[in-house]
């Protein structure tokens, strides 16, 4: 356990440094700098130099990185170049939406994906092939397009869900659920297909193991074999895949939040990217890295629970 | 080479397999000394973990030796330079246990068998083909087999091909690592007979590694018994089989049930053994 936490800590610090360092280096490589961007074409050379000094841009890169890092550790991630809002407040206002979206999608993926995979593994023949074909379609269609099709059909034509926008749970829980339903499904669609396939393979593999034969030979009921023994063993590889998928879901929020105009981090970063609002982009990148680090810890702990083989080396 | 110098002399060989940073290395062989004379078959017998395969690997240059020496015709080869090691492969060859893994599935039998000839520049394309055909016949296969892939053959047939590959360079020493363990009794007899007839024909020396006491007794002139990385006993095969001196060898021979029911009934230990914790 100690070893696991230590390893996680080392990996996390590495990841945070890599993401923030990479961001910083990339920004410094940009043609033109923030001072030029803020002043635009009008500023004089004196104004430009003064602003550079004021922003600390005349310092060498490592020094600037260190200053930024120190700020981050104090909770200060700088401010937006345009609205001048502190990045930390922009992030704090929006992180909830993104977390709900990702957690919702993950739950849907895990439940629906594993159920489909189980069905496909146990029902061979036509139903299994049908599920395989569906899963193939599921991974292939672009999820943002699928989201738009859902909006067209369910929101615009049938008016079952709001077209866009977000209702905070404090306002109305049912409204909140309705506003999240389509974004969650859109974000989850590819993942469901991937997990269904992985779960099918994992469950089929487990069903072919000798211990399943032995359990049957001992008279254990088929229900216990499938839902107790097989599922627990299949959970070992699935946990790893779900962990990696979670990182992909964070990426996915960028598109999904834009389609549904959700006030989350993904939407924030798209807007900031369009405006080249670099402090905001940097801040959001760091927060995404932090979320990844946290989920990695959860996944590691979960893996520890489902796989006794790593508990006792 | 002096008259008294054996073909292979292993002296005080110690092999450690690293097991990562957190565990101490695994000592697979601990100061093992054996000799193999030219033309004989030395049987190496032991259970899993005894180090018998590691000894074969060490002679082939595959094992991480930490101490000791291996002499081939008086020349120390454990620390031979890579170039010399490659030359030695003409003299020292190997046949493995698993006939399914030892042939590259992506290459035809002809390509696999010609590879050593081409590599050592012993034959051009045409001559190599001729030689491969000749060897396939020698091991009891039709020459047409060279156009086929390993997946088209049974375990016994693959083992014949593996034997042809090892012997096509006409080496002096062949390490036979559990070559019949994966085979059925009737096919095992075919392969053992093939090995014996090739030995008579070519005068090759075998290091015959197995866990099966009956097989090793039948095949070997001398036997070395390994247990937990050390040689517990070595000597004439018939003497060891009939009259083992070491308690472990005695236990090993007593443990293997014999096929004759009347004899086996005599050998059975009284039932109700005392509890064991670890095997």
């Amino acid at each position, binding site marked *: 356990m100690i070893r696991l936490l230590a390893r996680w800590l080392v990996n996390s610090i*590495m*990841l945070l440094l890599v*993401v923030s360092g*990479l961001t910083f280096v990339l920004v410094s490589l*940009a043609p033109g700098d923030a001072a030029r961007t803020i002043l635009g074409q009008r500023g004089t050379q004196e104004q430009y130099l003064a602003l550079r000094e004021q922003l600390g841009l005349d310092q060498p890169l490592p020094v600037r990185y260190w200053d930024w890092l120190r700020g981050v550790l104090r909770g200060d991630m700088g401010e937006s170049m345009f609205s001048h809002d502190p990045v930390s407040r922009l992030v704090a206002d929006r992180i909830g939406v993104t977390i709900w979206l990702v957690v919702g999608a993950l739950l849907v993926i895990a439940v629906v994906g594993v159920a489909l995979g189980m069905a496909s593994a146990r029902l061979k023949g036509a139903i299994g092939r049908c599920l395989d074909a569906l899963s*193939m379609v599921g991974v*292939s*269609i672009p999820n*943002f*397009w*699928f989201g*738009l099709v859902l909006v*067209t059909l369910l929101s615009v034509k049938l008016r079952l869900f709001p077209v866009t926008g977000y209702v905070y749970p404090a306002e109305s829980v049912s409204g909140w659920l309705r506003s999240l339903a389509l974004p969650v499904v859109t974000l989850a669609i590819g993942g469901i297909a991937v997990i269904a396939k992985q779960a099918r393979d994992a469950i089929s593999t487990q069903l072919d193991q*000798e211990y399943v*034969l032995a359990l049957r*030979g*001992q*008279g*254990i009921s088929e229900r216990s074999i499938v839902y107790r*023994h097989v599922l627990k*063993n299949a959970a070992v590889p699935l946990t790893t895949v779900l962990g*990696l998928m979670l990182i992909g879901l964070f*990426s*996915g929020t*960028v*598109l999904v939040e834009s389609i549904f105009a959700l006030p989350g981090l993904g939407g924030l970063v*798209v807007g900031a*990217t369009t405006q*080249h609002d670099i402090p905001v*982009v940097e801040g959001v*990148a760091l927060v995404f890295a932090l979320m990844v680090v946290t989920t990695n810890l959860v996944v590691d702990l979960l893996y520890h629970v489902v*796989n*006794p083989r790593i508990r006792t080396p | 080479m002096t008259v008294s110098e054996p073909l292979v002399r292993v002296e005080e060989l110690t092999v450690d397999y690293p097991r990562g940073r957190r565990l101490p290395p695994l000592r697979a062989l601990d100061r093992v000394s054996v000799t193999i004379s030219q033309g004989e078959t030395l049987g190496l017998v032991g*259970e899993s973990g005894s180090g018998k395969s590691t000894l074969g690997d060490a002679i082939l240059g595959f094992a991480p030796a930490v101490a000791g020496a291996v002499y081939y015709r008086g020349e120390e080869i454990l620390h031979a330079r890579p170039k010399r090691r490659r030359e030695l492969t003409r003299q020292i060859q190997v046949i493995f246990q698993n006939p399914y*893994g*030892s042939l590259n599935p992506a290459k035809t039998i002809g390509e696999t068998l010609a*590879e050593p000839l081409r*590599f050592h520049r012993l034959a051009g394309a045409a001559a190599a083909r001729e030689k491969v055909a000749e060897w396939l016949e020698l091991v009891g296969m039709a020459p047409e087999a060279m156009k*086929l*892939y390993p*997946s088209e053959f049974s375990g016994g*047939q693959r083992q014949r091909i593996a034997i042809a590959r090892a012997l096509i360079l006409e080496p002096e020493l062949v390490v036979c690592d559990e070559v019949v363990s994966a085979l*059925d009794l009737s*096919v095992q007899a*075919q392969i053992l007979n093939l090995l014996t007839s090739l030995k008579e024909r070519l005068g090759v020396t075998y290091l015959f590694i197995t*866990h099966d006491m009956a097989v090793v007794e*039948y095949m070997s002139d001398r036997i070395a018994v390994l247990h937990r990385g050390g040689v517990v006993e070595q000597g004439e095969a018939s003497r060891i089989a009939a009259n083992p001196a070491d308690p472990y060898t005695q236990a090993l021979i007593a443990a*293997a*049930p*014999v*096929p*004759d*029911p009347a*004899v086996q009934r005599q050998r*059975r*230990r009284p*039932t109700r*053994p005392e509890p*064991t914790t670890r*095997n």
Partner: protein
Amino acid sequence: MRSVRAFFRQPVAATAFAVAAAIILASVFANVVAPHDPLAQDLRSANALPGAEHWLGADTLGRDICSRLLYGGRITLTGALIAVAVFVALGVPAGLLAGYRRGLFDLVASRVVEVMFAIPVMIIVMVVVSVFSSGVTASMLTIGILGSGSLFRVVRGQTMAAAQELYVKAARSEGLRARSILRRHILPNIWGPVIVQTTLFSAGAILTESGLAFLGFSVQPPAPSWGSMIGEASRYISAHPWQLIPPGVLIGVIVMCLGLIGDGVRDAVSRTDTVRRPGRRAGSRRRGQAGRPAAPAVPAAPAALSRPGAASPDAASRTPASTGAGADPQPDAILSVRGLTVAFGRADSQTVVVQDVSFDVGPGESVGVVGESGSGKTVVARSVIGLLGRGGRVISGQVFFDGQELTALPPAALAKIRGRDIALIPQEPTTTLDPAFTIGKQIAEVVRRHDRRPRAEVRARVIELLSLVGLAEPETLVGRYPHELSGGMAQRVGIALALAGRPRLLIADEPTTALDVTVQQQILDLLRDLQDRLGMAILVVTHDWGVLADLTERAGVMYAGQVVESAPIEDLYHRPLSPYTRALIAANPHNATKGEPLPSIPGQVLAPADWPIGCHFAPRCALATPECSAGPVELRPAEPGHSVRCLHSASAVV
């Protein structure tokens, strides 16, 4: 190349390849193929639906959607190509180096990749786009770099696995240099997985590029790309939903084609590379020419007749059950098997693997089934308790347990018998236990299944069972996981599990094959001891005549799906009547005279599909005559308690 042919022989994969190639070529030659200028506005046909003028309709500015898709493909596919090029250029060399050389480079590279996996790609792409606003190149380079970790892992893993292969070890012992080994033995085995990964990644790259273009981070309007066309269409979804369809479907189709190509390559490679066990199609067909010439005994029987299962399942199974006991179960037997015939495969193309097997096991008796691989002995053992697995079924014959016909029971009723009346000890002790549960939990579940009792009593019974099989310190053992046990301990736990329901018959399928000889001895002793104490019957399936001699009183010898001889083991060993039994005993090195060749059986066991209609052993038998192949040979009693399936058994006794 075999694999290339194997790929195009798959209709789905070949179609996917053709469709993807057509889309790519049409985009490359868009200037030739496209019916309209992609930028030409024609307000008269604004928002037109598909028709003769605009095959896929026109957008809000009246631009032809089909032409825009073709030109747009250039942007999207170029972007994907950039990402894929980086992906391969980084992943393959780094993976090869790390996998083959290992050492420091591997350590560092693997850690770097581990971190790369944790980076949310889209976010870094956002950073890149916000910094370098120009076009798709920078973002697709980033995607290629960040994605290459997955290819690195695959190549590294494959290289490491290939480097462990015996044929690579053999190549090293042939004296090949590292460079030649990489080129000749390792690379040919990794290109399949590399292509699979690359097609999957290119599908992902197309999706990502479209997503970025949808958000407006790609080409500037009015130039089209697939993603930006979806973006434009999304503004008019309530009025003109059609415009959403063509670009989305096109992306879906090409991505799906790439996925199917990847699957096709994987199947083609595994089909050509996987090891076919003896007795599969090609092996048995070519055996006649390539292998040692089989005895030329099989007369020209019509092909259909030589495949009893395929042509006429009944012909094979109609042979009367012929132990002399007739079709009725022996009254005092606990287990009676009568004329058991088992087939695998679909009903229209089934293969019979066990034919007309009959035997009895008395209460408390030990009976053996001995045979080589492919003889069907394990299938017999499993069909007794209805555990044949997928595709296997009893097509005729009966199994009686204690007078009850098991073969007539519904699966649920049979499941009740298993564990309680008949229990199974499978072959491989370490894989027989569920790795995810402790020993205690596994045994407790079986105990509870067979008699419901309070918790404390279940625990006491678990401890009792563990002590019964000679395991010391059962109290600590209950908390252990299977991977913490040695093979011998695991097999003892396996036996404890089998004993939990107090069965009257124990079926032991090669119970000691996976064990070292000294551990085997302990397990054999334990089984005999348990039988003395508990009085249950044992059916032992084995290839080892020593195990047979140690454990059993009577045994049947199986060859190619049939019992060829059955007798008390003393008779079987000392006075075998079947030429096969005789040859098999003679081939045993225990009986060999040093310096003399071992008597061996020429040829090999035929695959079930190739079994002759007559005596199955005839093609390899020294005594075979034309009558042997003329028709089915029956198992007949030769003397009391001793049956044989041979026309020449009289001349076999020497």
